[in-house]
């Protein structure tokens, strides 16, 4: 089971094979938790996100289709969706986050060596470093902060109509650099 591919494990898990589900969980727990934390900056909410994502996967509330891309991309999308919903909910009840404090590139938080996506991260990080500062910022605001188009326009002092083009350009540049950096693409 440990070496079974994600798609097969998912199919088994969707049919309530607990062992397959558990293998998937073990495989992705750290990535999903870390990503949820990266988005929410809150360990408790990140835990809630992980729980929501996997419970919904198990009970079939969210379903993955193999023809729509890799399982990992799907799982990460579901995670991001839940996380930005949580960020938005908290913002409504609490306060605006301090956007200025975060940057697209983080300093490593731990000295642990047992990385699972370390190489991939390094490649993407190098690619990000090649982007201009304002491009890094717009990706952070759009993808990691999940801000609305209007808020991004306000924050970057851009006309609303140009936001989409800017984001697309930044992402395209990034993708280009990533491909150059060593051909890491997802799956």
């Amino acid at each position, binding site marked *: 089971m440990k070496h079974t591919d994600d798609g097969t494990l998912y199919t088994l898990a969707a049919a309530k094979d607990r062992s397959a589900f558990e293998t998937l969980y073990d495989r992705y727990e750290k990535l999903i938790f870390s990503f949820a934390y990266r988005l929410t900056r809150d360990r408790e909410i990140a835990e809630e996100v992980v729980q929501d994502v996997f*419970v919904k996967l198990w009970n079939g509330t969210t379903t993955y289709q193999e023809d729509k891309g890799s399982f990992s991309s799907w799982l990460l999308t579901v995670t991001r969706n839940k996380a930005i919903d949580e960020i938005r909910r908290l913002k409504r009840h609490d306060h605006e986050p301090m956007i200025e404090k975060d940057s697209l590139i983080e300093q490593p938080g731990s000295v642990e060596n047992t990385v699972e996506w370390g190489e991939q991260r390094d490649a993407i990080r190098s690619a990000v470093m090649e982007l201009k500062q304002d491009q890094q910022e717009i990706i952070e605001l759009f993808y990691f902060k999940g801000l609305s188009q209007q808020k991004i326009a306000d924050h970057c002092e851009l006309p609303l109509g140009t936001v989409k083009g800017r984001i697309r350009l930044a992402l395209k540049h990034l993708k280009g650099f990533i491909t150059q950096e060593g051909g890491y693409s997802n799956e």
Partner: protein
Amino acid sequence: MNEQCMHLLDYFNRSLTEEESLAFEKHLEECPSCSAELEELNLLTEDLPYLTEEIDVPSNLKAKVFAAIDETPYSSENETKPNNHTIEAFPVRPKETKPVKRRGVAVPVLAAALVASLATNAYLATTDEPPSTEVAESNLQLIGKALLDPQPGADNATAVAMMIKDNNETVLLVDASNLPKLKDNELYQVWVIEQDTPQPAGSFTPSEDGNGSVTHSMDQLEGKWDTVAITIETEPNLPSPKGSIVLAGSI
């Protein structure tokens, strides 16, 4: 390009209302340009999650998730449903992948979190294996659960009792909060009651802030328990309660 095309980013970032979101999804079916752009956006962002720095996962997260799963209505199928019809069981249309405005925090999530924290304790209390061991955790089964009601004099006290089967051992787990302060020689005693016959099922003294929990193996006890109660006693595991009842509920 029409007005809807302007909503692509906000749809991707889930900042549309549910109504707007549905309208945009309808638009997506009719606008090849928007659906191509959305697909491109998904493709262009698929590497970004891997920028994430690794952080340590809380050691009890897995137990929480699996306890929450055991609370879902589908979990009972686990034992009865064979795994050889996977194709039929494979769902056809995605729901959650389409961004839809969330509907507020669901109560079951909170309940699941509560159950999860309890089951984690139960797990830790009933096995020597580390939490990463797959088999031990998978075998946790919730058999019964009771919310105990405070009795007069302990109005703010709350407690949950859960009967959990872990492999072949059954344990009763009780987790209480806001308990009245005890005198020096007193303790809280848990009882399982069949009709009018109580049997002791673990005792504990709460923390300073009135919280306490205890797990008790039920393998030595036999009965069709209908009630779980907590009393204040001066000695643990008396044959029958002498002190006053603080909390009680049917299981």
